[in-house]
């Protein structure tokens, strides 16, 4: 068992090191980013400030110059453009790692400018959409993959492989555009933008609190609203990820079907169903669970472009808004949270892997990495 503890410790350390290296990379990029881009933003704001100052006759030119100067410095401090780059990178890293991200210039999501609350708000939405979509596609994919694996090279199997090939090369955001075109533009079943889901929810809760609708209809209405706004993005994500996922399951299961213990189980008179679900699936569970967990977590990063196309207020859209509005700390926070969740999952997976595959418990060699 000792060597097992050692392996997990090594993995945890190496993953944390990876995290720190990534945060360092992001901070370096963002510092460089603020040097070039934000400098421009500051210059604009200062010019605008000088213009409306010029209209105010009461001030003498010296006072105006002084005020402009003060304003410029305040802005530079606010955007963190002061001090030598290395220490700036270092400070930014510390801020990111300790999650004190401050606030963004204006409110993009949720109701407060604090970056952490906006990220939580966006994360909540991404979880609602992408987590459920990925879960659905895992469940359907599992069933499809298992079904195809029972008759390798049968009709279902070749159909599945074709669909997997197709969905592996489908750009998700393009499928989103098509969905909007067909369902939102041509027959108006669904909204073209999902951002207003929150206003609808707010009106709904006001109507509920003012007592004008019953709890039951509130709940039904609540679900209907969510479904109404979420339908298109949800089906897109599910459509694109089912194929690939079913293909992974099919390959792993076919691999396990060729093992010797499958013949043993059959010889013992177990029905084909028991052999498949009892022995093969259980033996195939370690790789399947690992891939499932990894795809679930990487979905937390949201799909930047798909969310932009649908206007779904998730982590992806927040990242894109942060990019277009040059909000360095919002960018940093967003990426950091995605990577943090990814690495935490890998660590949990390494530990979980031990219980899934007893061979690891004793030899301690296997690594999800």
């Amino acid at each position, binding site marked *: 068992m000792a060597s097992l503890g050692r392996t997990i410790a090594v993995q945890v350390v190496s993953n944390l090191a990876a995290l720190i290296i990534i945060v360092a990379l992001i901070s370096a990029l963002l510092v460089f980013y603020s040097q070039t881009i934000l400098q421009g933003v500051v210059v604009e704001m200062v010019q605008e400030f000088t213009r409306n100052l010029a209209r105010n006759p009461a001030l003498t030119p010296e006072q105006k110059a002084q005020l402009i100067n003060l304003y410029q410095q305040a802005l530079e401090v606010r955007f963190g453009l002061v001090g030598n780059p290395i220490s700036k990178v270092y400070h930014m890293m510390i801020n990111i790692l300790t999650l004190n991200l401050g606030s963004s210039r204006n409110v993009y999501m949720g109701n407060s400018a604090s970056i952490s609350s906006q990220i939580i708000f966006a994360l909540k939405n991404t979880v609602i959409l992408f987590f459920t979509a990925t879960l659905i596609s895992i469940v359907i994919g599992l069933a499809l993959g298992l079904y195809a694996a029972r008759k390798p090279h049968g009709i279902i199997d070749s159909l599945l492989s074709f669909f997997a090939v197709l969905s592996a090369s489908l750009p998700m*955001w393009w499928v989103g555009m098509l969905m909007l075109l067909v369902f939102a533009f041509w027959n108006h079943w669904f909204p073209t933008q999902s951002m207003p889901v929150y206003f609808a929810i707010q009106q709904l809760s006001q109507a509920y609190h003012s007592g004008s609708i019953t709890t039951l209809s509130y709940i039904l209405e609540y679900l209907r609203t969510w479904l109404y706004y979420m339908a298109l993005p949800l089906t897109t994500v599910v459509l694109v990820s089912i194929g690939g996922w079913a293909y992974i399951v099919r390959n792993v299961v076919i691999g396990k079907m060729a093992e010797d213990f499958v013949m043993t189980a059959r010889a013992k008179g177990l029905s084909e169903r028991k052999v498949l679900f009892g022995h093969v699936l259980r033996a195939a569970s370690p790789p399947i669970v690992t891939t499932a967990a990894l795809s679930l977590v990487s979905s937390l990063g949201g799909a930047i472009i798909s969310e932009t196309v649908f206007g779904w207020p998730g982590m992806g859209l927040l990242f894109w808004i942060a990019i277009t509005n040059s909000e360095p700390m919002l960018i940093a926070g967003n990426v950091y949270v995605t990577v943090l969740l990814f690495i935490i999952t890998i660590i949990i997976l390494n530990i979980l892997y031990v219980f899934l595959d007893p061979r690891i418990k004793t030899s301690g060699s296997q690594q999800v990495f």
Partner: protein
Amino acid sequence: MSKRRGSSGFRRFFSDLRRTKVGIVGLSLLILFLGLAIFFPLIGNMNDIKNWNNLQYWRDNPKAAPPCWAVGNTFKSISVTGGENTSNLIERNGELDGFKYISYSFLYNVETQPPIDVIARFNISYSKPTYVYITMERPDGKYISLTGNPESGERTSVLDLFGVDPNSYSGDIRIQLASYLNNMITIRNYIVPWLQSNNVTLQPQDVFRLTNVAFSTLHQELTPNIINAKNVTYLSGKYNVTFVFYSSDKNLSVALEKAIALGGCYGIVGTDNMGRDLWMGLMYGIRWALIIGFSVSIMSVLIGGIYGVVGGYFGGKTDEIMLRTAQVFYSIPVLPILILLAVIFRPSIWNVISMLIIFGWPSTALVTRSMALQIKEETYVEAAKAIGSSSSRILFRYILPQVLPYLFASIALSVPGAILTEASLSFLGLGDPSIVTWGRILNEAEVAGATINGYWWWVLPPGLMITIVGMTFILIGQALDLILNPKLRR
């Protein structure tokens, strides 16, 4: 002797590829795309691509027009050039009470839908004040004069219509009838009087409504309340638009460059909102897709492959360090960082490609490392050591040849990813503006709200091309996987 071994390996390799069904489909599609990419200048024309960003070049095309095969009863564009002897063009010149005149009559036939515009381009030169008179004759014999009618003493100078120096000028002039007619002054001066003369009741607010339908109204059946009639019926038959240029300058010369009656549809895949021919963009996009796809996948697989094999074979410290770096790269969320880099450095296509390579190699490295670890344990590798072969000989003659087939498969399998990521970047507007790629076309579609305006021909084909090219390589990759020994990849 050994040279032949290499080539026989490849020949056997491609003969296997042909055997599998999947391989045949993939291979034929690949040959098709390679052909289209290499021979693009023959099937498309290069200056379409050179002028992709020069909007002047496209101004004669209908804007955001669907492909003709898809739209049933729309007007099909007709165009004539000066001097072409066709029934659609009648040229006349001569003198009339002291003025030299040159006139071009452009005739076009309308079945159910009128053209959305009539555009004419002339090359004119004169040294005295010159005037222009445009009339339209409808199939029902009615005449509409669209500029000052010289017979009733009104003269419209070329200055008013073309904004050129009225006294002397030599060069090109161009007019778009629809945009000329769809403004208040022209409507009040010429359209309203003509309509009233044909007893069409016009309330004041109807005039405003005319501003964007004036040109098409001229093609309608004349009934009293045609302005707010529910279903519009157009007068079918031959229309004749005549451009007369007259000036006191005896050596006035006017040459018609081109006259077009613009149809409601265009070409094979239609046009975007700048009138650009999307078919050209799509076909040319193949070239860039393949360049990006191949360069990224080949480089990242080779780098990753060698790195993995060396790490796996030599093991120990190098392997450990390699594994950790590959891990770091592997847990980086690729798209956000790529977007960040693209925003900061505004990269050219070649920087984007190198960025994709930097993020691409770890996945191959991890697989080839585990393969090298497996092959290293084979008896024939130890036997090679026993007869004294050096590590490099073992690497290149024993391990790499076994890993090579897998590298081919993973090159094919990583092409779609590269194309997709570049397309995503260009879709966000971060691609290289100097080149025509599918991602960029889709970006322009998204910016112009193509989905919300229903321009399916602008949105569907580029995405379809990305998918089909991607599928081609995955089919080839799967075929290669089928004929390799899968046990090595576990």
